[in-house]
């Protein structure tokens, strides 16, 4: 579920950047920037970083480039360098709110939690109508285990921007994890999918909701789609294997559990896969011939 909530952050990092300064087009610079964006979208963060750095070497003062460089660095876990890039972006444009939000995340990940909180509080005070600051606040509350505060922040983000897919999904995921008496996760999850239909984690969350409710046909569709979109995602594979078992596709489920056992590093996931694997084997289920 943590990975799902992380999406709030990723959505902000990967979001297009409206309102950024546009300067006169310089052909090589544009090419490098486009190449960097392409590498970033493909998950090749080192190459994205290299492209952005080359673009910056050309000499353009572009806060967007600095911000994107920061994103590539943050994705690689280089929190210090990412913070520096975001700070440079803010020097060039002090009202570059995406960079400000990203700096909060970089600070938090770098262990500077108080600094992150202070910056976020300042941002929320100066720009109280900006929804993604509340999304980020909700995510930080979630990481700290304060689920009621996280829910409140996500809901405020939705109030300010009812089309925020990350806030919608995160609210749904949080409610799925911690059922509340008067709120149902489904409207949030359905709206999140409407806004971002190709999102693997959104599909998986919705599918898992259906599974828990015993809506196995719907769960198979949603989790099946998520699995098709991203077969590398282990959490999605675990959900897919579970659903396959419940719809009677036990051979296919055994194959998936075998794969989970091969790929999992997390002990908890390994134990779960082991349990299912032996349960199926113990019932005489054998893997389908390739």
């Amino acid at each position: 579920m943590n990975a799902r909530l992380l999406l709030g952050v990723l959505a902000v990092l990967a979001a297009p950047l409206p309102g950024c300064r546009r300067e006169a087009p310089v052909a090589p610079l544009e090419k490098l920037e486009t190449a960097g964006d392409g590498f970033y979208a493909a998950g090749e963060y080192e190459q994205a970083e290299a492209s952005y750095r080359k673009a910056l070497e050309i000499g353009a003062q572009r806060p967007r480039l600095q911000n994107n460089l920061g994103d590539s660095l943050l994705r690689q876990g280089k929190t210090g360098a990412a913070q520096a890039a975001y700070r440079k972006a803010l020097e060039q444009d002090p009202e570059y709110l995406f960079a400000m939000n990203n700096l909060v995340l970089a600070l938090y990940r770098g262990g500077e939690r108080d600094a992150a909180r202070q910056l976020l509080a300042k941002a929320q005070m100066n720009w109280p109508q900006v929804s993604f600051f509340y999304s980020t606040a909700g995510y930080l509350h979630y990481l700290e285990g304060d689920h009621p505060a996280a829910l409140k922040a996500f809901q405020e983000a939705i109030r300010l921007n009812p089309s925020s897919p990350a806030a919608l999904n995160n609210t749904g995921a949080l409610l799925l994890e911690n059922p509340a008496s008067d709120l149902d996760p489904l409207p949030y999850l359905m709206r999140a999918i409407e806004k971002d239909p190709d999102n693997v984690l959104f599909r998986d969350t919705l599918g898992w909701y259906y599974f828990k409710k015993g809506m196995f046909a719907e769960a198979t569709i949603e989790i099946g789609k998520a699995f098709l979109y991203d077969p590398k995602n282990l959490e999605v594979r675990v959900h897919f294997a579970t659903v396959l078992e419940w719809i009677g596709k036990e051979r296919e489920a055994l194959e998936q559990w075998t794969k989970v056992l091969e790929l999992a590093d997390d002990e908890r996931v390994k134990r779960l896969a082991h349990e299912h694997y032996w349960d199926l084997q113990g019932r005489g289920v054998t893997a389908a011939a390739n």
Partner: protein
Amino acid sequence: MRYRQPEPRRTDDGSKDEKRFGWRLIRVSHFAVKVWGAILLLLILAVVGSILYARSQGTESIIARVIGLARRSIDQRIALITASPDEKELVEQRFATLTFVSGRVEIQRATDLAWKSGQDGMRLASGDRVRTFASARAEVGFDDGNVLRIKPDSLIVIGDLTENVRTKVRKSSVRLLVSSIEADIKKSVVRGSQFRLEMPTATADIDKARMSVEIRPDKQSQVSVYSGQVALDTGSQQVQVTDRKTVMISALKEITSPENLLPAPRLSAPKPLETFPSATGGVVIPCTWDPVPGARAYRLEISADRFFDKPVVSRDDLRTGSFMTPSLGQGVYHVRVAAIDAQGRTGDFAEPVPVRVVVDRQPPFIEIQKFVVLQTGRGREVLVNGRTEPGATVSVGGRPVVVDETGYFSAVLKGLAVGQAEMEILARDRAGNLKTLLQKVQS
């Protein structure tokens, strides 16, 4: 409603239109008058007959439907004329989906007079009608997670289905003619969104509720709210119906005092998503629930489909808080229970619990990793460890040993009988399948 005043049409010479019309003599034969008179009489008889028949059946006549279509078309045109350009852009049409169909269910599109067979996954738009015949059921799912379950012999009309493009506020409404429905309306993501049920004599605005509505042919309506809150408005009377209350609305738009409904019992067994292995192909599932004060009996239903369309177990005579099901074969089941009060009214059903029965005829494996017989001062001892199927129980020489969640077991057994040559290791899986292994105990 504001109407746009038509401008008078002017001719070049400044004369008015009416000046171009005048009297003219038309000759009509006596025979033609008779024929047209007969046709007119037949038409009047057909219209009156259709209205009377529809009234006797408690449905809407074709004539009323045609008039309704015409009126809606005029209303839409008026709305288009009177709305400002901004307003027109603000609202976006949404859709609902027919998510479940069982038996004879038919759909009539807003733009079509013909009824067509309803299919799973069919999209429904504003103005579409859904009718269920005897023993038929349907479920309509909305894009915000709201669900309407339509029981047999019902007729509903999808009303508003809009979203304000700017504020994202959604308005949904459903008109209920003679019908029996259950609704599960969830709290909306965006404040100000509304779900409305329009009954013949009242409207119900729902913020969040699980409820049922039954509209009888005499236009009396029964509204039962199991959880949440519903605002009823008859035009002359407004009543808030809250958790576990039921009211009747008369044909004269009078709402009775709310009466209590029983709460849903909490199912303590089976657990959600529990698996019941069976070595024989069938398994008895024990069901237990917390007793509800004031309950005369309990209604328990078990169904292979989540809509409880064709329950495999349906009992409404259970007096205690437990029940052993008959043997259930392999498959997925949904279990739900409700309390019945002294008046015979069924309260809210507990959230259905999905469970499954799996067939397991394979005995568990036993893998002995170490089996050592030691001769000590106190006699012979056996050190044994190994693995079996997770969830199985193991006994060694008749003595139970602890098996961990991965199936690993380990034990030291003391005081072996003198002369005992063999020791039996027995594993029993959750389905009851047995596996035995004999180990020699010669030191």
